[in-house]
């Protein structure tokens, strides 16, 4: 082992590779090998040798029609099994420990492909359709995660995202029905910010436990929207009928096969989400605003000694983050469902929270996590249609089970902002 130089004042820390990483690699290796066995036993040999799986790569609306890929189901699944097995063996050898998560990701991807091949054996499956709904399902999750990470970067835990989304959805529907889309979206964002202000006020001014404050906001939002929905919307049905929002099809780009329908034929909400991701990333890591917000979330006392107003910064950040949640709520109500229903968020805000952790408090991480969760949701839908004999409830469980696994497996490694959840007490 490395000798520490006795006379050197700025010693480079000698990081000892602990057995923890090796153990993790080995566990992942075992998991992958088990997955390979499942793929081979169930997916490859669960179909007839001559079965063919067809994946459609174009939608009926596409400019270029009839793109599809057809593979021999058993051969393809067998190939996936081999890939997963090799990845697993490689992990068992315990080298190149940094790649463990990557290997797990690739292995899971191969597993899903094999699964789809099996499910679509002797039939066809709209791959593009699923990828497109992945992107759409990812929007609210990503926006929720962005709201959460923005708050938490400043040191305030926001568990009330669910409530912000729900209230914003309600306001969006009512205002959009009455005054049009623009007012609807603006109002939704505003109410998101108002609830953000309430959270900030409780957490900062009264130092209410931040998780409790968030939970209470969720309950308040649920009660208030349900109350108003049955008291007002049930009588004034015309307030629950917002105009449908059309897609903005981006010329040329939307005609690219697969990529086009996935990314370039959506409502402005989808483009807006991508824009927010980029803007937040740039903002957090390149600008004065970001440096200050992060300093307040990491070491508020240090920020304070440099003349940065910790509490004001937190107020501002949490309130602005509410705008993002409001945007998400508007999307849910106006673009996805087009009306308000009681408890229509159904816990998606919490999935957003998990995506925030999964994405390690990074905007692009949140987007990636949102896409992963969106994919598992879309998968559940599509597989339900295919009729594989797997109860749809189990497919619907998937995102939640995945979240538990992610949180249990990753929290040790992902590091939240150091002052996350701690009230700042200035003398």
């Amino acid at each position, binding site marked *: *082992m490395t000798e*520490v130089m*006795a*006379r050197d*004042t*700025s*010693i480079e*820390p*000698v*990081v*000892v*590779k*602990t057995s923890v990483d090796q153990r993790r690699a080995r566990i992942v290796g075992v998991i992958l090998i088990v997955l390979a066995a499942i793929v081979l036993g169930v997916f490859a040999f669960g179909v007839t040798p001559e079965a063919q799986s067809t994946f459609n790569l174009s939608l009926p609306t596409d400019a270029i029609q009839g793109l599809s890929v057809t593979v021999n189901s058993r051969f393809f699944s067998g190939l996936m099994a081999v890939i997963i097995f090799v990845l697993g063996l490689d992990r068992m050898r315990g080298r190149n420990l940094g790649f463990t998560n990557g290997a797990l990701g690739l292995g899971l991807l191969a597993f899903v492909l094999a699964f789809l091949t099996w499910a679509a054996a002797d039939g066809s499956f709209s791959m593009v359709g699923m990828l497109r709904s992945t992107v759409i399902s990812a929007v609210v999750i990503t926006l929720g995660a962005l709201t959460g990470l923005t708050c938490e970067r400043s040191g305030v835990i926001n568990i009330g995202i669910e409530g912000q989304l729900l209230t914003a959805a309600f306001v969006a529907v009512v205002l959009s029905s009455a005054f049009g889309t623009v007012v609807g979206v603006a109002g939704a964002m505003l109410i998101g910010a108002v609830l953000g202000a309430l959270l900030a006020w409780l957490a900062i001014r009264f130092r209410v436990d931040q998780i409790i404050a968030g939970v209470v906001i969720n309950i308040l939002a649920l009660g208030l929207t349900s109350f108003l929905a049955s008291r007002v919307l049930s009588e004034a049905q015309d307030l629950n009928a917002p105009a449908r929002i059309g897609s903005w099809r981006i010329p040329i780009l939307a005609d690219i096969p697969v990529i086009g329908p996935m990314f370039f034929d959506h409502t402005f909400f989808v483009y807006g989400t991508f824009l927010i991701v980029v803007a937040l990333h740039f903002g957090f890591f*390149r*600008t*004065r*605003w970001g*440096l*200050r917000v*992060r*300093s307040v979330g*990491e*070491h508020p*006392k*240090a*920020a*304070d*000694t*440099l*003349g*940065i*107003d910790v509490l004001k910064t937190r107020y501002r950040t949490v309130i602005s983050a509410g705008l993002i949640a409001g945007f998400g709520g508007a999307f849910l109500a106006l673009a996805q469902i087009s009306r308000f229903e009681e408890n229509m968020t159904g816990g998606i805000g919490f999935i957003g929270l998990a995506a925030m952790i999964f994405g390690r408090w990074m905007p692009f991480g949140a987007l990636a996590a949102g896409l992963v969760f969106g994919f598992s949701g879309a998968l559940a839908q599509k597989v339900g249609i295919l009729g594989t004999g797997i109860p749809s409830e189990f497919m619907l469980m998937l995102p939640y089970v995945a979240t538990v696994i992610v949180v249990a497996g990753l929290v040790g490694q992902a590091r939240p902002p*150091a002052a996350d959840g701690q009230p700042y007490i*200035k*003398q």
Partner: protein
Amino acid sequence: MALELKGITKRFPGVVANDGVSLTVGSGEVVALLGENGAGKTTLMNILYGLYTQDEGTVSIDGQVLSLDSSSDAIAAGIGMVHQHFMLVPVFTVAENVVLGQEPTGLGGVIDRDEARKTVMDISERYNLRVDPDALVENISVGVEQRVEIIKVLNREARFVVFDEPTAVLTPQEVDEFFGIVEGLKADGKGIVFITHKLGEALRVADRIVVMRAGKVVAEVLPADVTTQDLADLMVGRSVDLQVDKVPAAPTDTVLTVRDFVVLDDRNVKAVDGVSFDVRAGEIVGIAGVQGNGQTELIEGLVGLRPVMSGQAHLGDIDITDFNPRQLHEREVSHIPEDRQGSGLVLDFTVAENMILDSYYQRPFSRGVRMDWDATFESAERLVEQYDVRTPGIHVPVSTLSGGNQQKVIVAREFDRDVKLVIASQPTRGIDVGSIEYIHNQIVAKRDAGAAVLVVSSELDEVLALADRVLVLFHGKIAGEFSPDADVTDIGLAMLGSAV
């Protein structure tokens, strides 16, 4: 140019932290503010830096009274502060930490990174501070962190710089380097306030020494006019006797045997790297060393709070290497932890509850799963009496007690039983002199009763006063073994890492 504090008074509920304190520092002058823990030095400096607001008195520069409501006011007035606990964001780079709050920005608030880097390099070169602007703060050593703090202050064009206990976390060599930097700042015309409780350092670096005690300035002297002993007397208000009354040790059997101990710190770096030593019954072994040389990890490894990577520890014949705290407790090992409030006590619990924190599950405090509160209260009343814990009662939360009395609660809990081995980590850190003496005497009494005692302290004086044998820990290794009567210079050299 001169910075002047006049008649500063600051009251906290129940305490007068500063009582009519006055202090002046001119350009190119180093003033040492000397006092023991709790004398009110830090409070005074927090007022100067705008973190607290004084109840009475004024702060002025060249006769112009300042109103300091926040640190930004202090910064604007040209006052800079290097805090005892560095105010650096670990996940930021050096340059980001330096420019935070005064970022050079371009269009739309985008930070000009080259400009930030250049700022750091310029100051770094001018004062010979040698830092890498792109290094992450969490990856640099404590000494470098301090230099980053100094760059932060200089970047804000401070004319007066306050250093709060700047040497506490430095190795002796870094201390030398630090004093070099202070000389440079002084030559550049900065006025410097140097807060410390270390007499030697005050004598070495200061042009003037201001001594505080119990919130008041008790003396203002020139280094040439006083001796260390004079200063010590001024600091505590009576003749201090740093010696602890004790008879020579009569060690018998070996109780604790530690061999080739290796323990990692939180960053997975080897903090303890092959340490071996013995502690015998009836002797006190002291571990000296600059803070951060593996003391914390060594003790946590010994008491089962941190996994031991390799090596063994034996208690008599029993291998205790992988024992957990409870197993050790049951083998008659007492542990006074380094972090009194963080791990030694449950602050929300009452004195009585804290008194049984590690023996609550044993008779007489519980029978089966049922707690016997009567027995607990009875015992707590007795311990409060016996160990001189000053508290309104056993039912008040322990958080309402002073640091010294909190520590006595721990000592009472750990000592009021048969004890084979005492492991005491920083047993008197940050507590009043009366409690220090009391706790020292209790530790010696345990030794005389036949216990083996291991004391760790970053205060060399404490180790020398208590120990019968002194081990010096440097960079996770034992750098030498000494008798407490040995030449302090030799021990100092060992703490510095020089072979003896």
